[in-house]
């Protein structure tokens, strides 16, 4: 050591104390929230993504915390997805649709309370849907207004001119929107709110209407994702209330005032931030997680399943990998070319390398999942659809029929140019191997095919890209995300936007967004005659008898199967892994409805609300 006043060591010590390290530590310490008492076991740990969802539903709070809506908030009722428009009531006790389908009266469960003990009232529901008016969602459902009858009763009014099925409105109001606390959110409703909303629905050419619309737009902008922050210290009506968060985990503790609090057996929920799949894989391999919805590769799947108590269950999911075409781009505007390609793709092999776990290869490429096919079509109808099994001979015939020629260098188009395909996919797509397999299948047939990748920004708007001709052929998630055929065919023949738009006269109309597939309004389907797919699709959502609906679905399936706006390669499954180490799970064989996809709730939340899960030991 150097002695004396000049000691360099001492200087270093003194200076490092004011260094970067200390400074930043103090910033971290400054971040600390207040600690609250920890509840003890049983804690239910699960891995999931932390994306914020939807508009208005709680966004990141002003203090930066992100609350997962599905755990801390519940809707009025939970959709069963059995296809029969059935619901499990949650905050609502019951509801009644008027005979003309234009009034929905909801009776709240008097036991429903917020996490601070105050009751959930009709006013909370009112404010929740006011916010939907504010961002102009409610208007698109044809909702015209609401009336609070008493503390537990609220009536919703639908525009009688809107012709579509009232079940749609029911779904929006009962299931699709979590009820938010008026105490926290009413501050965002302007005083002149309703007058503006009413004025905005007036004569589109009137200046008052225009002014009101402008106001509405301003509000909606303020409330939309990029600008809106939820208030701090929210109260919750869900089974668990938000407690604390780190970047990797979140803790929710049981809400004792939750309407079905007695059913809730997990005192707390620990949510692991599933930034990437491997976070969930590690948790499952370590036996730390009770639940995860995660994709697998085969070795990981076998590694996870080799852990005792881990189980996997697959629910059908109405989406999958499809190859979509720009139907105005030569040669894909030729139905024969699309059909030939369908004959040339070995869907089974492609699925096996593309998405080996959690998918099923498509048996009949008619736009619907196998389950939907079984439900909506008779065996005879199903047999009449073309399964496009691998068949190079048929493909050859089809291609030759439109003037293509096979040479030593491969297939040549009538214009003399070689037939070459570039399959665009997301950069670093999980499906890469599957696409390569498809490419090699086509290559071996003589169609020069290569895989290429899009920029991530482009991937989010692939459908736009296909629509505008940026990508003649692209691969993407495709499907309605809903077992009801309407959503599938809406996407295929009308718009890829799942929330179709309704104009003032109640007609489904083309939105401002270009169509993915520029499907013609009438298609001549062999053996079926001329079909008007858009009319048929719209008809599916109007009040028609089930038998007519089924006939319409068949016609649409035949049309899709013939016209092939996209070639469905494989359908995905909603794979869920759960551990029975600490919890008993419902018996999915006895109650397949439980397997279906729930919109905003993580499945175990629903099982808990229904009282189907119990801690072991």
């Amino acid at each position, binding site marked *: 050591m150097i002695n004396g006043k000049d000691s360099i060591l001492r200087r270093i010590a003194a200076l490092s104390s004011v260094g970067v390290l200390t400074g930043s530590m103090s910033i971290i310490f400054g971040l600390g929230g207040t600690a609250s008492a920890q509840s003890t076991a049983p804690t239910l740990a699960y891995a999931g993504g932390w994306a914020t969802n939807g508009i208005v539903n709680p966004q990141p709070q002003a203090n930066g915390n992100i609350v997962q809506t599905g755990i801390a908030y519940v809707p009025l009722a939970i959709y069963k997805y059995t296809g029969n428009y059935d619901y499990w009531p949650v905050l609502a006790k019951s509801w009644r649709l008027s005979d003309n389908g234009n009034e929905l009266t909801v009776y709240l469960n008097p036991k429903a309370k917020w996490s601070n003990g105050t009751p959930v009232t009709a006013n909370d529901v009112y404010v929740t849907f006011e916010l939907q008016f504010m961002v102009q969602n409610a208007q698109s459902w044809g909702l015209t207004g609401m009336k609070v009858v008493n503390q537990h009763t609220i009536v919703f009014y639908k525009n009688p001119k809107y012709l579509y099925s009232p079940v749609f409105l029911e779904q929006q109001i009962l299931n699709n929107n979590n009820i938010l606390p008026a105490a926290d959110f009413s501050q965002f409703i302007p005083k002149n709110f309703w007058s503006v909303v009413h004025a905005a629905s007036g004569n589109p050419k009137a200046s008052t209407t225009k002014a009101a619309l402008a106001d509405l737009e301003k509000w909606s902008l303020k409330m939309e994702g990029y600008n809106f922050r939820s208030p701090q210290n929210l109260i919750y009506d869900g089974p668990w209330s938000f407690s604390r968060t780190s970047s990797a985990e979140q803790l929710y503790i049981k809400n004792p005032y939750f309407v079905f609090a007695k059913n809730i057996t997990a005192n707390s929920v620990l949510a692991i931030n599933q930034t*990437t*799949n*491997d976070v969930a*894989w*590690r948790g499952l*391999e370590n036996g730390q997680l009770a639940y995860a919805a995660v994709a*697998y*590769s*085969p*070795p*990981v799947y*076998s*590694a*996870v399943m080799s852990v005792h108590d881990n189980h996997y269950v697959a629910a059908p999911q109405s989406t999958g990998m499809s190859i979509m075409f720009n139907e105005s781009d030569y040669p894909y505007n030729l139905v024969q070319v699309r059909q030939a390609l369908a004959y040339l793709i070995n869907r089974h*092999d492609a699925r*096996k*390398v593309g998405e*080996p776990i959690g998918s099923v290869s498509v048996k009949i490429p008619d736009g619907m999942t196998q389950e939907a096919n079984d439900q909506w079509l008779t065996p005879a109808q199903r047999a009449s659809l073309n399964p496009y099994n691998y068949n190079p001979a048929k493909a050859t015939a089809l291609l030759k029929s439109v003037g293509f020629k096979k040479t030593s260098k491969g297939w040549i188009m009538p214009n003399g140019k070689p037939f070459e395909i570039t399959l665009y996919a997301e*950069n*670093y797509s*999980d499906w*890469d*191997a599957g696409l*390569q*397999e498809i490419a*090699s299948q086509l290559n071996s047939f003589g169609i020069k095919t290569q895989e290429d*990748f899009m*920029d991530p920004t482009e991937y989010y708007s692939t459908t736009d890209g296909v629509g505008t001709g940026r990508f003649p052929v692209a691969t993407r998630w495709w499907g309605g995300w809903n077992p009801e055929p309407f959503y599938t065919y809406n996407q295929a023949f009308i718009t890829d936007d799942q929330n179709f738009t309704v104009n003032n006269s109640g007609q489904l109309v083309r939105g401002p967004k270009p169509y993915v597939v520029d499907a013609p309004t009438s298609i001549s389907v062999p053996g079926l005659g001329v079909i008007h797919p858009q009319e048929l699709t719209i008809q599916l959502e109007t009040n028609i008898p089930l038998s007519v609906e089924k006939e319409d679905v068949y016609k649409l399936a035949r049309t899709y199967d013939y016209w092939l706006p996209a070639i469905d390669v494989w359908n995905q499954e909603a794979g869920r892994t759960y551990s029975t180490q600490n919890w008993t799970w419902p018996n999915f064989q006895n109650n397949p409805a439980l397997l279906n996809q729930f919109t905003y709730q993580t499945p175990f939340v629903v099982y808990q609300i229904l009282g189907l899960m119990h801690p072991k030991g």
Partner: protein
Amino acid sequence: MRTFWHILRKRKMRIVGVVLLLMFVFMAIFGPIIYPHQPAIHPNEIYLPPSWHHLLGTDYAGRNILPQIVLGARNVLFVAALAALFTVGIGTLIGLAAGYLGPIVDSILMRFTDMVLTIPSIVLILILAITIGMSNDVIMAGILSFAGWGGMARAIRSMVLSIRERSFVEVSQGLGMSRTYVIVKEILPNLLPYIVVHLMLALTGAVYGEVGLFFLGVVPFKADNWGVMLNFATGGSGAMYSTRSLMFLISPILAIVLLQTGIVLCTDVVNELVDPRLRNTVGGYQANGRRRQRRTSVGRISVGGRVRSSSN
């Protein structure tokens, strides 16, 4: 050639390094001849263990891993070598210009260099990679060269400044030689050892950056790159989580580690090869122009006829 062997033999690790680097260069040159195409997908041969057919096993799509490594070597080495050349070229040019062309050029160039140096190179590369895009290997190499040219330019500049002050430059100017002559014939040869050694260092830097970009998955997918393999191994295919698939994780890691090790060990060889002063020294001349007395050259000093060993 004899000196080369001599240098090699001095340390065993150097032989290892040269063999490793030669192996990868061989792969890069002849790989596409041995394996003309990317290995095919075999849906029924997923994650096979190493065997005679598949020396490194197969990946998540049943592809043979070895050809992927071999074919990856060309892409990795080509882009990295190009990037290293760019790095060294830009660095040398800017360093020479700043050091030789006077204080105004110097201060402009060095402010710019300082700024680039302050920005973390990987961050800069990331931003450039996605704004400019990496449509081909040359552009990619150009972007990657941002990783190192700043440091290179600074070093070259300070060397030029010090060489410029050495009197042989003044003498040469005094003899009426042109600027070009002085730069090319007097200054550049003195920088050459540094430039060549830095070329090797820039190579490791470029491999790091290039493979890293593919590992992060931010630049367009390229089937034959180790970074992509590593990305899929750690991410989508989760090769880390099962011993069955471990070869897919280990192969690219091993390839990267061995290549970098090879380059590093060869840097040592190159260093000695290009700098004769490290090899054999007559007189006490050292690179920095200072003369030092060699304390070890005379082991014995005879005093008054009696011999004593001297030591400190």
